[in-house]
């Protein structure tokens, strides 16, 4: 029992340290044997998953937990790097670990014929470590550092198929956009540090004044993190990078995108949460901006997905649309944040938005994995040249059907559960927004039915007569996600009450997060 407590106490550090250490051990281990390396990568991520589960078993019932690096107790915490884990952080960590684990299992057969796989696994683990760090850290400069590591490692993964000119082009686009973005995050951090002499998110939140400089910092942070999450009109890098990275890496990059999304929430609800609570006007205006941008994101994503002929690029645009739904839910939560009469609407909206994060991650990754499986079997990207694959790839077809229904928000799947919450709450704010959101969802269904028809149905093509079902590890990875989708769809209440509700509550009751740190200050210094 004692050991368990010790592990829980140190798990915030271990969650980041284990994959980071594993990343740098991977090149060494791949000297031994390829199989050993693959098992090692899976083992490292499984171990990380165990720590995440241990930590969540403590954080969800008992509230935020602080981990101070280099100190046993709260001695001069101002100077230390802190990790602070609350319901939202641990929720995001669970999503990231699931995605990373699935990606590594999928890579086993999918990337088999590539060379330089030791670097691939190193980057994969590095990206996982950095996005977990992004989600757990309580220090805003530390946040910037992890953001840059995410940027570097995902850029290298996007360009992994370096023999394709398009992949390198997409990677360059991504790194230009995110390097400039990260520098502006650093600028915003410097603006905050210069005024308040603190780098800790909770400390900053407790003293922030909402001066003119704070407004500039808010704009910079929300714009940059929104851009890294793929918010229209700053989404142009996303379809390129999602469409060109190896699909097994794409699903971890989805996790990294959502870690930036988490950054937006942290900024809006914790860092500026107190101000938004007191000054309803600014929370309403920021909330409306996010709602409108979210809706435009949905629209643009769906419309652009309509005209794509490249399988993975089409899925990437639908991923843009899904991100829009999350912003829609969170924006509504922000609009009604200061209004006590609308509290239940806000809560529903936030729950819908947060629940949609995990659903979006699962649905879109399943589709990418299917697209990867199709590419693996046929070496074909364009939908125009596919057809009749259902005859040769039975399981993949079933998985695609599940992903299709989930991403369009059809009832038995998980997408329905969260989208319904979002529609409900958006309807209370403005019915028209809700109608547009539902229409886009239907369009999404139409698009994917078209894809299903052109890729999987139809007569058997002579070119594809030797196409076989993909290897077992890829089927296993797709099967894991598909079964999660179905379980979440049939029993949404389990997920909602166990992990989504604590996450949404921790965003709304931002005070707990701040109190945890600020109280330790007065005791320690």
């Amino acid at each position, binding site marked *: 029992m004692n050991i368990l407590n010790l592990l829980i106490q140190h798990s915030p550090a271990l969650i980041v340290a284990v994959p980071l250490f594993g990343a740098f051990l991977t090149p060494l281990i791949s000297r031994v044997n390829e199989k050993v390396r693959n098992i090692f990568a899976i083992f490292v991520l499984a171990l990380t998953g165990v720590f995440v589960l241990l930590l969540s078993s403590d954080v969800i019932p008992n509230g935020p937990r602080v981990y101070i690096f280099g100190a046993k107790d709260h001695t001069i915490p101002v100077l230390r790097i802190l990790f602070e884990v609350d319901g939202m952080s641990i929720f995001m960590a669970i999503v990231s670990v699931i995605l990373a684990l699935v990606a590594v299992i999928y890579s086993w057969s999918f990337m088999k014929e590539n060379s330089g796989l030791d670097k691939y696994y190193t980057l994969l683990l590095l990206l996982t470590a950095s996005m977990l760090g992004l989600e757990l850290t309580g220090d805003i400069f530390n946040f910037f550092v992890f953001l840059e590591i995410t940027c570097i490692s995902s850029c290298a993964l996007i360009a992994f198929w370096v023999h394709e000119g398009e992949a390198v082009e997409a990677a360059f686009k991504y790194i*230009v956009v995110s390097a400039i973005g990260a520098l502006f995050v650093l600028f915003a951090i*410097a603006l905050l540090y210069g005024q308040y002499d603190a780098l800790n998110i909770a400390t900053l939140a407790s003293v922030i004044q909402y001066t003119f400089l704070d407004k500039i910092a808010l704009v910079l942070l929300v714009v940059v993190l929104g851009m890294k999450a793929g918010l229209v009109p700053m989404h142009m890098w996303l379809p390129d990078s999602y469409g060109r990275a190896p699909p097994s890496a794409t699903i971890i990059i989805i996790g990294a995108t959502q870690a930036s999304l988490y950054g937006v929430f942290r900024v809006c609800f914790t860092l500026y949460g107190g101000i938004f609570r007191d000054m309803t006007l600014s929370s309403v205006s920021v909330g409306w901006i996010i709602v409108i941008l979210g809706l435009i994101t949905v629209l643009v994503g769906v419309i652009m997905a309509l005209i794509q002929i490249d399988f993975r690029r089409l899925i990437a645009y639908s991923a843009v649309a899904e991100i829009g739904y999350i912003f829609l839910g969170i924006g509504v939560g922000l609009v009604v944040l200061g209004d006590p009469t609308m509290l239940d609407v806000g809560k529903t909206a936030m729950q819908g938005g947060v629940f949609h994060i995990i659903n979006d991650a699962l649905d879109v990754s399943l589709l990418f994995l299917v697209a990867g499986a199709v590419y693996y079997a046929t070496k074909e990207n364009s939908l125009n040249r596919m057809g009749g694959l259902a005859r040769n790839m039975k399981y993949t077809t079933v998985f695609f059907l599940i992903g299709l229904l989930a991403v369009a928000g059809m009832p038995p799947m998980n997408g329905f559960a969260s989208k319904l919450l979002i529609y409900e709450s958006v309807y209370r704010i403005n019915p028209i927004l809700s109608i547009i959101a539902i229409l886009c969802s239907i369009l999404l269904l139409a698009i994917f039915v078209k894809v299903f028809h052109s890729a999987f149905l139809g007569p058997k093509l002579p070119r594809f007569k030797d196409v076989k079902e993909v290897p077992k590890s890829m089927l296993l990875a797709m099967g894991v996600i598909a079964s999660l989708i179905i379980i979440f769809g049939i029993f949404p209440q389990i997920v909602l009450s166990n992990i989504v509700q604590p996450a949404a509550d921790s965003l709304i009751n931002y005070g707990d997060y701040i109190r945890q740190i600020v109280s330790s200050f007065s005791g320690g210094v």
Partner: protein
Amino acid sequence: MIFNIPFIAVVAMVFIGLYAVLFKRNLIKIVIGISIIESGVNLFLITLGYREGGVAPIYTSLPAGTNYPEGMVLPVPQALTLTSIVIGVAVLALMLSLVMYIYRHYGTLDVRKIRRLRE
């Protein structure tokens, strides 16, 4: 500080960098632009921690007669800047290697000709 010159320099550098990224057609020049923005931001961090006539914040070797801690410059922004410089080097190296690969594939560094992705 004289007329806030460092802050004016910061703004100038950020805007020069942004100009290069937005309007230059050569990939290498875009990379240089990003590098200039980075230097601007680093300068901003350093300027925040600067005190006129301050000494290096090393407790064990303070010059005689220094007021403690008012006479020292702030150490935290310097630590931040060092981290930021290290990250900047990594990003720069990655960007330049990508530029190299783009040149191999496309035979040009002109952004107008590198747009195979645009459909």
